[in-house]
């Protein structure tokens, strides 16, 4: 069974996502920092990751692009602003059409206890309005498209 995911919206500009993984922290960190691994898990179901460029160093640029089955494309990019292997990654993120209104600062922290790694991702928007605007965004619409077949997919994954 997949582990539970928690999402909270503390304060007026943040979204925090927390999840545990049955794996050592080093490995989880690699899955976030190596493009050949990141592209294998990150993104919307049924979408393909056609761009996954990562210059994994402080000041390095990253760019990710996804394409829906019917050809809709969504891409974002940013810079790595702080990296502390294997416990912390800070990066900026800007979507190509700027629907997040000035981008976000994304901070990932990884902690390990008894072989379980807890990932905590804090996404900070520039303003409260920007966080709210994200809900009416292409990302939300894109997710809707991408999730049409999610239930089937999840059922399949769980029976495997």
């Amino acid at each position: 069974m997949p582990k539970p995911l928690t999402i909270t919206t503390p304060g007026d500009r943040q979204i925090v996502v927390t999840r545990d993984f049955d794996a050592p922290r080093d490995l989880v960190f690699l899955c976030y920092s190596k493009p050949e691994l990141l592209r294998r898990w990150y993104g919307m179901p049924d979408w393909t990751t056609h761009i996954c460029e990562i210059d994994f160093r402080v000041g390095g640029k990253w760019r990710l692009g996804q394409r829906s089955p019917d050809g809709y494309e969504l891409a974002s990019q940013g810079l790595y602003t702080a990296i502390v292997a294997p416990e912390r990654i800070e990066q900026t993120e800007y979507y190509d059409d700027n629907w997040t209104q000035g981008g976000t600062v994304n901070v990932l922290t990884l902690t390990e206890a008894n072989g379980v790694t807890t990932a905590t991702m804090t996404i900070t928007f520039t303003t409260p309005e920007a966080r709210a605007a994200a809900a009416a965004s292409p990302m939300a619409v894109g997710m809707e498209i991408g999730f049409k077949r999610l239930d089937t997919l999840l059922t399949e994954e769980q029976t495997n």
Partner: protein
Amino acid sequence: MNPSEQLDATFIALADPTRRAILARLMEGDASVNELAAPFAISQPAISKHLKILERAGLVSRSASGTRRPVKIEAAPMKQAVDWLEKYRKFWEASFGRLDALLQELQTPVNADKPRKKKDEPNA
């Protein structure tokens, strides 16, 4: 309020644990301010302040007449926020589900089809 301002007001209203508890109570049915204040160790004016924030976000309403003026939950704006968070949740659940599989694969030894080292092996 436009939809994005509405959603923002909803998030701000939901950010506080007391306000979430008030909403949870109202999901069971309308209640007066006194009834709402009862389970909390805070004053009635403090509850009224929370109610004002919830009211401004459109999450609750109060009937205009009557001395009791019961507070009522308004489902629509709440649903909008919950729907969005639900989409967000599904995005991350799907991604992290794949990450689970990837992590499992990375932790599987290359010669996993061969028997692993066992206690009863003579040379273990």
